[in-house]
């Protein structure tokens, strides 16, 4: 009846974070370099690598939103805004100033962090459906800016971005295929974001987030500055999503207002919900699932010769079933015990 909290490990199969990192690093390196060392047909087709890169990008986005929707427990349907801001900042800087790509990531982060502050201020005292509207509207503002400002390329966006270089080597030339370099880069970034989340989660700051999630008034009464920590979470979250955006811009060699679409925001939010709020491995799983499943069903469509994409139907169904059967997400901590 009165359950103890199950202290499940944060990493896979009860392994420590270090071991999980090493195993996944070996896997990623294998995928990147295996085709360099044997002749003949590639083992890992470029298409698979593309999906892997997208998985890692999604995981990074989910880890970013996790600070708001996981640790703070607030709904945001506007995180595509930061994703887009990162991407556009990089695109603009690369196109018009020829700034170094790596620096443009930091400029994008700064932009996102600055713009996160007014969003946090606007959403300080609101919750639930009101917050959804605010965050959604926030993102729409940037979509319209992207469409209507001529230097940003209008609806077509900006294309022809140059691939970044690592010590003078094009990132696309690093591994066996042109995707490999991005895979390694994103793997490192996801690892850093996961490590960061994991350390913050159990710290004074993480407990402050937890207190705000549980009860704002009690949190205030316990000496927690709710405004400060809500803003902090938004800024961290914006920074992480912005990095994902910058990489996406370079990876796709283009940006378009589609980055700011509400579909993207909802997709990021579903990754967090499906993976399990507050769970780090859940974020990586949620991000990957939401990337792989559409591709799987797309190939089902091609094979079965269907005239429609079954994923579009199943996506909605999956969310409905998930919310009924396992509202805490795949790896989420159960929130409502039956006493």
């Amino acid at each position, binding site marked *: 009846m*009165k*359950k*103890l*909290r199950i202290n499940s490990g944060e990493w896979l199969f009860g392994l420590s974070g270090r071991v999980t990192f090493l195993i996944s690093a070996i896997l990623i390196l294998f995928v990147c370099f295996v085709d360099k060392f044997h002749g003949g047909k590639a083992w890992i087709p470029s298409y698979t690598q593309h999906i892997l890169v997208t998985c890692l990008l999604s995981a990074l986005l989910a880890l970013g939103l996790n600070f708001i929707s996981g640790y703070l427990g607030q709904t945001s349907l506007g995180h595509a805004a930061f994703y887009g801001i990162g991407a556009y900042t990089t695109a603009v800087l690369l196109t018009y100033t020829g700034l170094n790509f790596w620096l443009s990531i930091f400029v994008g982060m700064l932009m996102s962090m600055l713009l996160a502050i007014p969003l946090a201020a606007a959403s300080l005292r609101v919750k639930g459906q009101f917050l959804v509207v605010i965050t959604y509207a926030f993102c729409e503002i940037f979509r319209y800016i992207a469409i209507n400002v001529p230097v940003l390329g209008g609806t077509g966006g900006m294309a022809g971005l140059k691939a970044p270089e690592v010590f003078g080597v094009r990132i696309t030339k690093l591994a066996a295929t042109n995707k490999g370099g991005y895979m390694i880069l994103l793997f490192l970034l996801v690892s850093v974001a996961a*490590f*960061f989340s994991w*350390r*913050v989660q*159990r*710290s*004074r*700051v*993480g*407990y*402050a987030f*937890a*207190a705000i999630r*549980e*009860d704002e*008034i*009690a*949190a*205030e*009464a*316990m*000496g*927690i*500055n*709710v405004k400060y920590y809500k803003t*902090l979470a938004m800024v*961290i979250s914006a920074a992480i999503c912005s990095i994902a955006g910058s990489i996406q811009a370079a990876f796709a060699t283009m940006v378009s207002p589609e980055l700011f679409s509400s579909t993207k925001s909802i997709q990021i939010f579903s990754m967090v919900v499906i993976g399990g709020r507050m769970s780090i491995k859940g974020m990586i799983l949620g991000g990957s699932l939401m990337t792989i499943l559409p591709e799987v069903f797309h190939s089902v469509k091609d094979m079965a010769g269907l005239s429609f994409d079954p994923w579009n139907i199943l996506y909605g169904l999956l969310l409905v079933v998930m919310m009924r059967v396992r509202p805490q997400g795949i790896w989420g*901590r159960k*929130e409502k*015990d039956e*006493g």
Partner: protein
Amino acid sequence: MLLETHKVTKAFGGLKANSEIDFHIDEGEIVAIIGPNGSGKTTFYNVITGISSATSGQVVFKGKDITHMHPEKITELGMARTFQNIRLFGNLTVAENIVIARHCRRHTGIWDAVVNSKRQRDEIATNEEFVKKCLDYVGIYDKKDWIAKNLPYGMQRRLEIARVLATEPSLILLDEPAAGMNPHEKDELVEIILRLKSDNYSIILIEHAMRMVMNIAERVVVFDHGQKIAEGKPEEVKNDPVVIESYLGKGASGNGTA
């Protein structure tokens, strides 16, 4: 004088929930605030703890004007409260509830967490000490790994007190701590409050359980319709006709005693 209020008024539109209240408490004192439902007791708590700030008047705590201070700063100064409708961090463990309450006495930031600095490790160590100390104080240390909301009602109330202690307060505000408790739980609560008193904490107590108030309070303040209508020793207040009238209605005071 630990806490003093001068003509504190809190108005919601035209309604004065608190009207020109003068109140004070000395160090080591237990003061009870009583009054019918809706007489402005909890509003008064909200005003002095900074959750909502006074429309006019002044609140002075430890010689500092805290009228418009943020609640987290007031907690840092050494005032902490419990809530009438228990407000624990329900989905977290009992120990985590205490750790959160340590927030205002700790100073680590994100970078301490990321690099696991010495400061961070020291604080984790002192947290454990405090979890033990505070939970032992109210006698629920054996429940430290429970999810807070799964605790029996009486223990939830005690955890709220433990959580208050973890903020290292000098003034504790209890808002109907005995509400919904059975007689046995009430006795345990009285024991805890008296222990707090002997450990030199100052306590303000809002309570409806009159027997308890009369037993432990040194001074009783009576609120009605947002105003302070009486103040004095428990026996004095008990026999004050104005107080009896506010509780039982006009005419009841004619009989002398309640």
